[in-house]
């Protein structure tokens, strides 16, 4: 493999890995019937906490754990409003994104004032994250398709009432799925800081959470198809950077729109062919 191909492959992995991680978390949440559009914010908070922990301890492992717990903590806030109070998930997800922007902006400026100089996070290496992503996909796939709990989770997403009648603890499963989704988003954010870039930048997720949401739909709620979609997406973006380096005539400013336009195009082509979980985004109130 020559250096050019290797570079292209690496850039493909950098573009794909965070999307895959976040999408796996969202997949589990949505299969349980929880639509969480706040994963963008959870990624952002995960990125900042991973950065702060990484800078202060110098440990990549602690940084990753910090990112994961931060994402899960924000997901708990989301679940408290959506599952416990029965508030609208879309409104709350949008609010959580706003919350994450405000929180990361505030704490980044307080923790890392400009006079402190440029800080960099530890870099555990690409291999760690690629292997971790592979295990995550495998785990989620096997869990959903081959375990009793995975079956119960899918039942909760399709027919919460029926699952409840079967004795499945609907809200408990939804809580767990939401927390798992938040943890994955936090891990995806940590990946941004500990691999893709070595520092934190305000708003650095730049829509990756929303693209991951679209990928879940594009992949038809199946783990392997979501990975394939993410790879396709990453390949298109990597190719775009390549073309740009070759001095293509399209202005740079317009090329930056590619990921968003690509996502819109993919949604326009595939959204109507996919059947989401029947009870997605519907509140569940047990009869007592």
């Amino acid at each position, binding site marked *: 493999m020559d250096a050019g191909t290797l570079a292209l492959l690496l850039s493909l992995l950098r573009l794909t890995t965070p999307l895959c991680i976040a999408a796996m978390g969202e997949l589990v949440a949505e299969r349980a019937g929880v639509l969480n559009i706040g994963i963008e914010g959870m990624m952002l908070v995960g990125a900042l906490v991973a950065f702060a922990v990484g800078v202060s301890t110098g440990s990549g492992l602690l940084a990753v754990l910090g990112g994961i717990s931060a994402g899960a903590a924000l997901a708990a806030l989301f679940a408290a409003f959506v599952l416990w109070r029965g508030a609208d998930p879309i409104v709350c997800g949008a609010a959580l994104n706003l919350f994450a922007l405000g929180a990361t902006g505030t704490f980044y400026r307080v923790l890392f004032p400009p006079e402190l100089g440029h800080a960099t996070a530890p870099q555990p290496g690409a291999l760690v994250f690629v292997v971790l992503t592979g295990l995550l996909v495998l785990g989620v796939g096997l869990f959903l398709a081959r375990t009793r709990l995975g079956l119960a989770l899918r039942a909760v997403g399709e027919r919460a009432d029926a699952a409840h009648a079967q004795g499945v603890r609907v809200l408990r499963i939804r809580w767990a799925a939401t927390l798992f989704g938040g943890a994955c988003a936090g891990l995806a954010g940590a990946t941004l800081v500990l691999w893709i870039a070595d520092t934190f930048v305000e708003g650095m997720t730049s829509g990756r959470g929303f693209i991951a949401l679209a990928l879940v739909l594009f992949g038809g709620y199946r783990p392997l198809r979501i990975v394939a979609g993410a790879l396709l997406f990453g390949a298109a973006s990597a190719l775009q950077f390549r073309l740009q380096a070759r001095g293509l005539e399209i202005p740079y400013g317009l090329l930056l729109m590619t990921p968003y336009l690509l996502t819109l195009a993919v*949604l326009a082509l595939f959204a109507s062919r996919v059947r989401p979980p029947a009870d997605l985004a519907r509140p569940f109130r047990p009869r007592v």
Partner: protein
Amino acid sequence: MLAPLGAIGIALVALGLLLLLLGADPLRALGALMGGAFGDRNALENTLLRMCPLLLVGLGVALAFRCGVWNIGGEGQLYLGALAASALATRVLPDAPALLLLPLVVLGGALAGALWGGIAAALRVGRGVSEVLSTILLNFVALLLVAYAVHGPLQEASGAYPQSDLFPLAAQLGLLPGTGRVHSGLVLALLLPAALWFGLFRTAAGLRLRAVGLAPEAARYAGIRPERELVRVLLISGGLAGLAGALEVSGVTGRLFENLSSGYGFTAIAVALLARLHPLGVLPAAAFFAALSTGSGAMQRVAAVPAVTVQLLEALVILISASFALPRRTD
């Protein structure tokens, strides 16, 4: 009436606790915030200026949410309105007759915002794409379009900064008599809540819109076509945001640049929810968030609390309003 005040109260207490955590004196910070929002004439005019876009976009969000349409794209629609208004004022029509120029610029901005909302509507009705994702993605595209425009085709003639040329005088909104900076577009913005209240609660079109929001399938049995209402409300909602963008460039900044909006499109969601999606309630809610946004600058200077901290407050108000103060939807 009590629920929105409760939401504000809880959010303020949470903000106070956060300020304590950050090592700032909450009372001093809140005092600075109040002073920055209302302290003197200049502060008051700033608050009024910020209220204008929040009112317009907030009204649009309230209408869309009432219809069960999740338009999260106010920010992008506002930017597209500002972009179109600037293109018209500085490139396409700068030599148009003075009397026509301003109306054309403002109308062009509103139409561009409506177009941006219309794309999301077309994707939803034609291709089954949820408007939640499409409006969010279109926000990114709109911001990048503006960035491209001010670095490229619309950049000022001198090429010094990434911003458009200053609008010709005929394309700038006049000031309200007796004020130093407040543009006349605010009058229009202040009249709209009453007009939209009438439209929403006293006309057949408004009833159709609300019916679709409350129970789309029941509305369909009653002969209403939910798709048509969705398209209509996204056009209106986008148009209001586009109007806000056009007023911002022609009444406040006089030119287009990046970061023009300071998140009005997202704050507007908080405005609409705090108003319990009622057009008249948008008026005090917009005033509240405008004061918060103006005061946050002073809070940053005096109490060394980053201005973005108020976004936390906005998010909390949305969360609390959504779970306690919103009329429940019957599915």
